[in-house]
């Protein structure tokens, strides 16, 4: 008897047995090899898969003729799927290449038609740069068809492979905004996944396949790809845009945990995704995607022949690449995007905004390790519902826990996290609207309540330090820098009292909180903290990221304090630390070039134009080389160059650079981002120099309003924006600007002290305004009083000093 004969015989024998008898029989089989194979055969035998249809399907694919559609010439088949066949076609008028999707003849049942109509409707309603346009929908010889924009590019998963995390995030953000646009028109995509996003050659992602898109709120059978499907969609409940937010969250997790150069780590089945996110397990377990039943063209490309799995089936984990740890900030975003419905982001827009915050690093630079972006997305000027406040505060606890996990032993960490959670829960109970002050609890109220309870001093010192650190960063992200500074101060004092147990934490606290101190007016304390952090980190003995971060923060503190020469030295120091790290690939290029840009800005303010130009251009070169010409960081570099061109008096060049920067940013950030406000102000100034006064004033107003909306009217950036608006108005002959300028100057002075150079900048504008109004004496007196301070802070060549001198001179 050959081995095969034994195999078939044993298989037949087992088929006649009950399952448990089978197991017993196989366990007693002497030939283990045959027993194993029979087990596999029995399992396959139970599969409902149909083998016989495959040849018919393949044959049909080969012989189905393209339909004749009036107005189009169908050139060749591009692909086919469950819904129908897609052809490359020539539209006759207007003459262009399009994709024509023809519904299969047998799909003309009600649900097929319904899906098809909706795809057409959904897309036709939507005119969005990141969604393919629909040109025409029709029916010919009983077959429905849809002509749409031909999208050429790579599948998102393929495109992402050689891209950095930063680039992937920018693209995902664009996808989220496009999806949001569809939601605003009442259409949910329902089948978002990397294969349904194509990135064109210009780097712009397009969201394809609104094939199962349905109006918001309508329940359907659970169509879609399981791994990306929200629980409500699986269960056939009505869905809204949040179902797509769930899919975006799964995609984010994939994108953020896959190292560059490796195939995307596919999401496990969505059910386990939801479970694991609830349990706080942030990394996906790697599951071969075949088991999810989803399969696409790009899958085929990945699993190119020969397929090793066929010959020697083995566990997919054996070949799975290592996952990257998810940054805590991104872990929070993933968690909130895949949370149960009521806790999920309420829109794809909110999700996108959080990605922008992560990317733009407005806060990250100051305190790189605390995930508070989720919080910021929830913050509303007028307060939050209790549920949202609860979420915010509990997220702080989780953030602290995640952070602690990086540096402490697990057990101790868990005890701390528990203590923190208990504390915050109790705090929230107290802040409960039923027992508290009003119907809604604001985040600030919740945080204030937490801060008051901390002052009771009933907690273990290490827990209290953790909480104060967290509260400090929370206050800072809410724009309350004085409160942030006070919390940091208490935390530092507590750590010092407790003795030298945790130098790492102490250094982090000092480093991360120094600039709150500076913004709260305590420059000396801030510099002292940085010096202490330097001492604590000195043991590295070689260039180190923390030393670089400290140098960077020191530079920023000094720059804001008007000690520009010292600031430049600090930036230089940071660059020296960063350069070898950057060359070794240990820090991102934008970490490196951002410091370069800061140093250039300091030089620019001091009037060292050549040096500034050199640094800005070097940053542009490195960023372009690393990220490509379309990247946001490149937009920042162009913005900087525009600003410098303006200071150097080349308004034409400033306008040109601004336009380049604007084009990149609008596509990626939307028009309301604060950076676009700042850019508008540069453009406004340039236009005023060129005498185009109507546009200049309009742009300045627009820029200021964008800024105020984005960061609040009382933020320093917005207050300084008032100065630009006033300067533009003055240049254009509108001399009635004093009240606004004085108000902004006073607000800045109360925050930064009366002698700080931002305040002096406002005073220079005041002098210019007085002069323009004909009040020569007052203008001269004011301007003369500023000259000495300006020269001391910004150096003898500073453009602002020159402006003060010309406001002071005799007629």
């Amino acid at each position: 008897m050959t081995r095969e004969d034994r195999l078939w015989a044993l298989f037949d024998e087992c088929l006649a047995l009950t399952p448990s008898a089978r197991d017993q029989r196989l366990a007693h089989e002497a030939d283990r090899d045959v027993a194993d194979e029979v087990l596999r055969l029995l399992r396959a035998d139970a599969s409902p898969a149909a083998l016989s249809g495959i040849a018919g399907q393949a044959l049909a694919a080969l012989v189905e003729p393209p339909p004749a559609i009036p107005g189009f010439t169908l050139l060749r088949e591009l692909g086919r799927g469950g819904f129908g066949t897609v052809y490359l076609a020539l539209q006759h008028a207007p003459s262009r290449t399009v994709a024509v999707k023809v519904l299969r003849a047998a799909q003309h049942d009600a649900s097929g038609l319904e899906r098809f109509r909706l795809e057409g409707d959904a897309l036709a309603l939507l005119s969005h740069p990141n969604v393919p346009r629909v040109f025409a929908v029709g029916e010919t010889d009983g077959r429905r068809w849809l002509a749409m924009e031909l999208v050429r590019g790579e599948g998102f998963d393929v495109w992402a492979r050689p891209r950095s995390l930063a680039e992937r995030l920018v693209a995902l953000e664009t996808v989220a905004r496009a999806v949001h646009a569809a939601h605003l028109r009442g259409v949910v995509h329902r089948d978002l996944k990397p294969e349904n996003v194509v990135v064109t050659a210009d780097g712009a992602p397009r969201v394809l396949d609104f094939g199962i898109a349905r109006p918001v709120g309508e329940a359907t059978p659970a169509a879609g790809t399981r791994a990306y499907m929200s629980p409500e969609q699986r269960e056939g409940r009505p869905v809204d845009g949040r179902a797509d937010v769930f899919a975006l969250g799964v995609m984010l997790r994939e994108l953020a945990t896959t190292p560059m150069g490796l195939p995307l780590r596919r999401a496990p089945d969505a059910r386990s995704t939801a479970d694991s996110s609830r349990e706080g397990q942030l990394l996906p377990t790697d599951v071969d995607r075949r088991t999810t039943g989803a399969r696409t063209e790009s899958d085929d490309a990945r699993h190119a022949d020969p397929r090793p799995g066929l010959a020697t089936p083995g566990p997919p984990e054996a070949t799975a690449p290592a996952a990257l740890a998810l940054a805590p900030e991104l872990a929070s975003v993933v968690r909130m995007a895949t949370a149960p419905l009521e806790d999920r982001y309420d829109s794809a827009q909110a999700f996108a905004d959080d990605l922008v915050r992560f990317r733009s690093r407005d806060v990250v630079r100051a305190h790189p390790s605390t995930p508070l972006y989720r919080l910021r997305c929830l913050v509303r000027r007028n307060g939050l519902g209790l549920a949202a406040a609860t979420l915010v505060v509990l997220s702080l606890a989780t953030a602290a826990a995640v952070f602690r996990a990086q540096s402490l032993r697990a057990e101790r960490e868990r005890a701390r996290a528990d203590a923190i959670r208990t504390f915050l829960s109790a705090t929230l109970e107290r802040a409960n609207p039923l027992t508290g002050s009003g119907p809604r609890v604001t985040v600030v109220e919740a945080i204030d309540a937490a801060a008051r309870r901390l002052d009771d001093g009933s907690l273990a010192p290490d827990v209290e330090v953790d909480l104060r650190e967290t509260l400090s960063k929370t206050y800072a992200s809410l724009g309350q820098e004085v409160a942030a500074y006070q919390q940091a101060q208490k935390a530092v004092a507590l750590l010092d009292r407790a003795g030298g147990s945790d130098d790492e934490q102490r250094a982090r606290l000092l480093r991360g909180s120094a600039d709150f101190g500076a913004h709260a007016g305590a420059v000396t304390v801030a510099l002292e903290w940085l010096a202490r952090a330097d001492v604590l980190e000195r043991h590295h003995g070689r260039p180190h990221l923390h030393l670089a971060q400290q140098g960077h923060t020191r530079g920023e503190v000094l720059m804001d304090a008007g000690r520009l020469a010292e600031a430049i030295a600090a930036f230089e120091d940071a660059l020296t630390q960063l350069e070898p790290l950057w060359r070794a690939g240990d820090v991102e290029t934008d970490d490196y070039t951002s410091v370069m840009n800061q140093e250039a800005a300091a030089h620019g303010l001091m009037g060292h134009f050549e040096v500034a130009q050199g640094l800005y251009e070097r940053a542009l070169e490195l960023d372009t080389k690393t990220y490509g010409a379309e990247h946001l960081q490149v937009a920042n570099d162009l913005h900087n160059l525009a600003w410098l061109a303006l200071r150097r008096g080349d308004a034409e060049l400033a306008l040109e650079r601004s336009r380049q920067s604007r084009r990149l940013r609008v596509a990626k950030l939307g028009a309301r981002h604060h950076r676009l406000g700042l850019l508008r102000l540069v453009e406004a100034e340039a236009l005023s120099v060129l005498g185009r006064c109507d546009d200049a004033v309009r742009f300045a107003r627009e820029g200021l309003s964008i800024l105020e909306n984005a960061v609040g009217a009382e933020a320093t950036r917005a207050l300084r924006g008032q100065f630009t608006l006033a300067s533009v108005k003055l240049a254009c002959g509108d001399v009635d600007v004093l009240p606004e300028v004085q108000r902004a100057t006073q607000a800045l002075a109360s925050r930064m002290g009366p002698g700080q150079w931002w305040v002096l900048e406002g005073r220079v504008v005041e002098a210019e305004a007085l002069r323009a109004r004909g009040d020569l004496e007052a203008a001269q007196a004011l301007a003369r009083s500023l000259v000495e301070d300006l020269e001391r802070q910004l150096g003898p060549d500073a453009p602002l000093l020159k402006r003060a001198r010309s406001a002071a001179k005799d007629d």
Partner: protein
Amino acid sequence: MTPEDLEASYATLRAVARRLLAGQRGSLEPTALVHEAWIKLSEAGAHFESRTHFVAVSVRTLRQVLVDAARAKHANKRGGARERITLSGLEATPAAPWEVVDVDRALSRLSALDERRGRIAELRVFGGLEQEEIAEALGVSRSTVAREWRQARAWLLAQLEPT
């Protein structure tokens, strides 16, 4: 090959192809593909012993044409141009998550291992023949076909879907 053989083989090929398509959507005409298979078959100069042998040879030839065409299409999709065109709605029909070339490869392995089970599976999968017809074509009993088809099917699925 006699002219009668040629005529009969054409008719057989056409019948097999039509039968395969019967389960598919719409009404499709396999003419061009049948011509290709017919040319291939006549060039091979096969000698037919009986009508049932016609069927077996026709199925084998159609299988080759089908798999070659699918491979060519695949090669086009992957090779050459750097630009990839991706379009919506291209997800594979859920009933068959593998492709005809995969099935072809697995079937060849089965035939190398066990010729008769390979032939049964070929006639079933690539010819769409019922068990009775297979029994007739191979000159074995119907119960043998039923038993061995179940074995072959399990073996092929185990190959195609490693679990």
